[in-house]
């Protein structure tokens, strides 16, 4: 059996993020202490502007903290070079964006294939993994379609397949239902829940209370600070 420490995938200690705009300091995050264990489904919620997307960007290595320590899978990431961060994003993190962010000029297949292409995976292995990922999200029948030929819900499913295809350590979802109607939103949330049940670690940002309860653990942010943390059946910790 794995010890609790070995099970920690993300560990943040005293993380701060300060933006400087025209000599004005904006404190987006203050003293964030956070641990996410492998296999957890964590939801980060809070009002608009509370810093949840900034936190997810730092967690996803799209941005760097101004202060504090961040360990991903036991490895400090503060001093990584740009290419090392790119490599980690490619191999260990799967992104799901609010606006789907599919490339309009690539087919469904090519969009899902993209992370594997940058990884240097062989063509045969790419094919097998892309088909498997599309089957998991129920989009295997749309491989030759372009994003513009799909509904919003279908596009987000493809985006989930793209996030899954490289077998990442963690899925980072930023308002994955934000651009969807309630029916499609729930379908995507069901999909994420299924993935979690099959062992995926998920960290999701949402401002929608209905969907934050899909997660087993909810972190509430306010003015850049964690103000509340609940686990499973609404128990504050």
């Amino acid at each position, binding site marked *: 059996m794995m010890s609790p420490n070995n099970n920690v995938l993300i560990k943040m200690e005293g993380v701060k993020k300060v933006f400087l705009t025209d000599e004005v300091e904006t404190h987006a995050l203050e003293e964030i202490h956070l641990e996410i264990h492998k296999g957890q489904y964590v939801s980060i919620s809070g009002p608009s502007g509370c810093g949840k997307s900034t936190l997810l960007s730092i967690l996803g290595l799209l941005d760097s903290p101004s202060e504090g320590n961040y360990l991903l899978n036991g490895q400090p990431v503060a001093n990584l070079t740009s290419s090392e961060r*790119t490599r980690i994003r490619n191999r260990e993190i799967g992104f799901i964006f609010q606006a789907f*962010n599919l490339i309009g000029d690539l087919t469904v297949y090519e969009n899902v294939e993209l992370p594997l292409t940058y990884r240097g995976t062989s063509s045969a292995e790419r094919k097998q993994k892309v088909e498997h990922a599309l089957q998991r999200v129920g989009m295997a029948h749309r491989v030759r379609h372009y994003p513009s030929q799909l509904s919003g819900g279908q596009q987000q499913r493809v985006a989930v397949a793209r996030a899954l295809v490289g077998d990442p350590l963690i899925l980072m979802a930023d308002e994955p239902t934000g651009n969807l109607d309630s029916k499609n939103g729930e379908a995507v949330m069901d999909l994420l829940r299924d993935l979690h049940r099959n062992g995926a670690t998920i960290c999701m940002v949402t401002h929608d209370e209905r969907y934050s309860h899909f997660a087993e653990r909810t972190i509430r942010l306010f003015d850049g600070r964690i103000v509340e943390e609940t686990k499973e059946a609404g128990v504050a910790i």
Partner: protein
Amino acid sequence: MSKLWQNVRFSLRMLGKNPGFTAVAVLTLALGIGANTAIFSVVYGALLAPLPMPHPEQLVMVWSDDAGRNVVSPGDFSDWKQQNSVFQKMVAWDEATFSLSIDGHPQTLQARVMSPGFFDMQGIPLSKGRDFVDEEGDPGKEHVVILTNRLWRERFGSDVAILGRKVRLNAETYVVVGVLAAGMPDRYEAQLFVPMALRPDQITHERHWMTVMGRLKPGVTLQQANADMNNVARRVAETYPVSNKGWGVKVEPLKNDFTSRDTIKDLWLLMGAVGFVLLSACVNVANLLLVRGTVRKKEAVLRVSLGATRGQLFAQFISESLALALIGGALGVALAGMLLRVIVVLLPEFSIPTEADIRLNVPVLLFSMAATIMAGVLCGCAPAWQTSQWNLNDTLKEGGRSGGASRHGLRRGLVIAEFALALTLLAGAGLLIHSFWKLTRVDLGFRQEHVLTVGAGSRQVLLLVLKEGMLLALSGLVLGLGGTYFVGHAMRSVLYQVSAIDFASVGAVAVVLLVAAILACYLPARRATRIDPMAALRCE
């Protein structure tokens, strides 16, 4: 390989989805590459290509040297042939005019009177018959003639029984003994050749009128040949001090020996000018790609967020600009083929060596390919570099909107570069035009077009746009003036009564460019002021 194919496939798809952009960029590059390929064909054929003869490095011109190269006296030629130890063979010739009469129709033709073995020595093949033999260089036996293939076709109707046919030249009968193979000799000014047969009294050292060419023995260097021939000249001068005292010999490579320094310089200047045109085309396309890159900002950033390294993204952008350049290059080569036909017609006769074979060949196509790849890389570098300046997080959140001072800085830089290149290029053209005007006293007009594009705004913004545009134009003007200084000095030898820094030419070009820049700022800005801001915001 599969990544490369993916990049190429995506690039072609992107180009196909933007036919307007693709057409403009491809045509711009095609013009630049086409002009370069055409002019390089001339430069290569005239200056760089090896002579179309076997062992061309052995072929040399041998001149009398009297404080400058001079033609040769028959006596010197005779002594040189006998006393040298460095030549396999030496031949002499003189130009002449003959009247060829066929069926009573006379025609004056340029001819060459030459010592036997001229064609064999050079390795110029005959399609029929033979070169002159030694005894045909004896007086009384010289009534034989060799025709160029062109003359044989045009005046003798490709007569298959031409050998042995008697023709009337200068009212005397000559027998045709050979017809040269088609090709390079057809470009000779001379169309027929007769042997040079000198009587003993004509072989003197006083009159210099022969042109002499020789083929060096294998392994003999130019230096050795000059040393040996000057020893021979000293001995000849000791024997004939009255005529030969102070005369030496100058042995020079045949290649480009008849091409004037001015012609060589002009050709390289022309090459430089079309090089500027290509550079200007690249800057234009780079600017277009930058604008399009801004539209695709989110896609690029998304790729990075999914794990594309800067190198992979760079390769993607470069492969797109290379795809553009390759299409432009293919079109450019076709264009060069057409341009060459025009150039060959327009080139003044005998302004370049007759050996020059001006056509699209493997070296020219290799040059064209190199120019294409260079153009592709140049065009792609700016947008590829642009992507490395974008902030991943902000871009993914903002939805791909444009922004950032560095991008604008890059585009401003490109506009300045375009202006400077245009001024340098047009000022060079202006100098030549002014020079030509002075030379002919004919009032020549010229026009040029150059369009710059800038953004838009309200009436106040209109002034701002004009101010910004003028700032870029003036920056380009200053840089362009620097370029003009160097171009003017390089062209000094071909200018007539015009100084290298001719204020009239440069000033006229600068004014025209500035007016074009003002119009290019004013017109789109004025059009944009008519747009309803609320409608524009709703569209956003």
